[in-house]
């Protein structure tokens, strides 16, 4: 891959990760959000793949394949099964409405660039310059997590944070060592599986797909 097409590819795929995160704020249809999440996983895999092709790194190519399978298809599939059980399949009552959360997201992106200035100062590589995009994805994930009240939306917020961290890891360090990356992917997969079981049993025990209905524990 030549230098300029490599960095274009990297910019496009990293940008797609952030755009997907913002789209999840915009849409309220949970089926659509799940598809967006799948697209984000694929973009993340493309970032890893581009880096692997550029550096001829076999371990990184393997990581890219794992990311593509786990984040691009397996995890969205697990989430789709939970979405099917949510009546109406929509996020009906976000704490902040859509226009306000989009404005919030733009503030968070500025914040991400400010916070990452120390990181981007350390290296002039094309990938390092893009690191703030990953940080911004993490922050948008936070926004989703604290403003959405359906159990599925919270899982999605968590995954956005996770994908953001993974993007930062790929861009800054071309991925953590393979054994760590495999462990991280396995952990994420298991967390989603655990959350899926919990969300399902919460639905059957108390009919609560809405976290506002779960207020039993407090001081």
């Amino acid at each position, binding site marked *: 891959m030549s230098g300029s097409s490599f960095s274009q590819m990297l910019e496009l795929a990293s940008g797609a990760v952030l755009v997907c995160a913002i789209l999840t704020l915009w849409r309220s249809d949970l089926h659509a959000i799940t598809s967006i999440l799948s697209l984000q996983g694929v973009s993340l895999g493309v970032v890893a793949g581009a880096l692997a092709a550029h550096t001829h790194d076999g371990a990184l190519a393997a990581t890219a394949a794992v990311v593509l399978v786990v984040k691009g298809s397996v995890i969205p599939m697990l989430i789709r099964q939970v979405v099917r059980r949510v009546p109406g399949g929509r996020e009906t009552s976000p704490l902040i409405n859509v226009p306000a959360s989009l404005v919030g997201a733009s503030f968070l992106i500025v914040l991400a660039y400010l916070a990452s200035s120390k990181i981007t100062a350390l290296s002039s590589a094309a990938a390092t310059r893009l690191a703030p995009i990953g940080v911004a994805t993490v922050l948008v994930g936070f926004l989703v*997590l604290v403003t959405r009240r359906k159990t599925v939306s919270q899982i999605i917020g968590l995954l956005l944070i996770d994908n953001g961290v993974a993007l930062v890891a790929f861009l800054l360090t071309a991925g953590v060592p393979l054994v760590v990356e495999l462990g*991280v992917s396995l952990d994420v997969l298991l*967390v989603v599986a*655990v959350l899926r079981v*919990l969300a399902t049993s919460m639905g059957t025990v*108390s009919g609560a797909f809405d976290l506002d209905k*779960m207020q*039993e524990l407090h001081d």
Partner: protein
Amino acid sequence: MLIYVILGLPLAAAVAAGILPWRRWVGWMTTLANSGVAFLGVLLCAKTVNHRALGALDGSLRADALSAFMVVVIGTVSLLAVSQTNRFLRAEIDRGNSNIRHSSLYVVLVQIFVACMLLAVLSANLGVMWVAIEATTIATTFLVGHRRTTGSLEASWKYVIICSVGIALALLGTVLVYFAALHIDGAHLTSQGATALNWTSLQANAHRLNTGVMRLAMALLLLGYGTKVGLVPMHSWLPDAHSEAPAPVSALMSGVLLAVAFYALLRFKAIADGALGVGYTRSLLVAVGLGSLFVATSLLLSQKDYKRMLAYSSMEHMGLIALGAAAGSSLAIAAVLLHILGHGIIKAVLFLSAGEIYLVEGTSIITEVPALLTRRPVLGGIFGFALVALIGFPPFSLFISELNMVRAEIAVGLTWVAAVSLVLISVIFVAMMTHGRSLLLGEPASMGDPRSSSRTFAVPLITALVASAFFGIVAWPLAPLLGAAARVVAR
């Protein structure tokens, strides 16, 4: 070899418990495995106390005095908790809340949980340590939700979401440390590869790491692993999870899981101190430590539920430990480690006896369980002595460790911090005494059934109390070990 056996014992127990249907002897077998871990941990301490480190698996696993000490803490507390598992599971089955299959799953998950904690303290690689600590969250989720009530499901949901977010931030921090390690002195190093995340090489090269990146990384790590420790601002999962989980699980979570997450912070603190000097991490630790103490104090004052009281007390002690680590001298870290051991044992005893109280009284409201000491002398006596130990009475070891932490804080110039923490400790002291009095003393309304506590309950717990008092009076078996362990991370 020793390291492999320590990691292998709980895993083997998990496999065996997964294959065999749950019976009493399966429970005893896992107890045996955990006592093996405790015993081999002591052996590991003996081998590492003179500053040697043991490696295994091409250097991926590593045990120094600090790791060995943590293995002993994990082994001891898990032995204590697992010794009560049979009684707990039998009671749940008798009441129709559980069945053989659920019980098997419970035993398997507890052993996997213990194995993950052991891997976290024995790993040489900070990335693998992260994976192991995240895996503890996964293993404990279903343990917290074991009773499948609305409350326990809500608690496990909060637990997984908050801890996973926290641990994701810790991963971001770890990635930044790795990034800094790959760009030592501004040059891009690719040759280091997998060993760049080993904390031995990070600690050796700490002074050459980029300070700007390390500041950001340490803040994220403190926020992230701090979530798992139960420090502010992401502590809200802790009281729910600890009060809803079955008693042996609460004992394990409060006694060791919080401490294992703090161990991760100690390792990163040593690296950050090398890169940034002690001041930066110290001010962060003081902020979260005092914050946690304030929150714990305010919620302990009017607490009505004795299980939540114990949970907030865990937050208090983690706050104290954070303040001790902020001081950072050898004396301070040795006191922190002694406090981790003492708190682990005493809190396990308290949660286990609280579980027993809940079992026989059927309520966790303090005022609905009066005069426990007259009605059930053994159970009330154990709970009372442990409560007295927890709030820092001599001769128990928590007194010595709190005293030494305060001394160390004053010695490094954190006098105001020591003063504030002493005031808050006194408030908590009064609050816990008041709650303890209304639980233990008073006029019994009726004598209830005069069922005496069984020996399998009383003997391990009384032994643990005696051991804690012993370490409070006589320091010799621990002092050299604590010194060696503290020197690994102290400055």
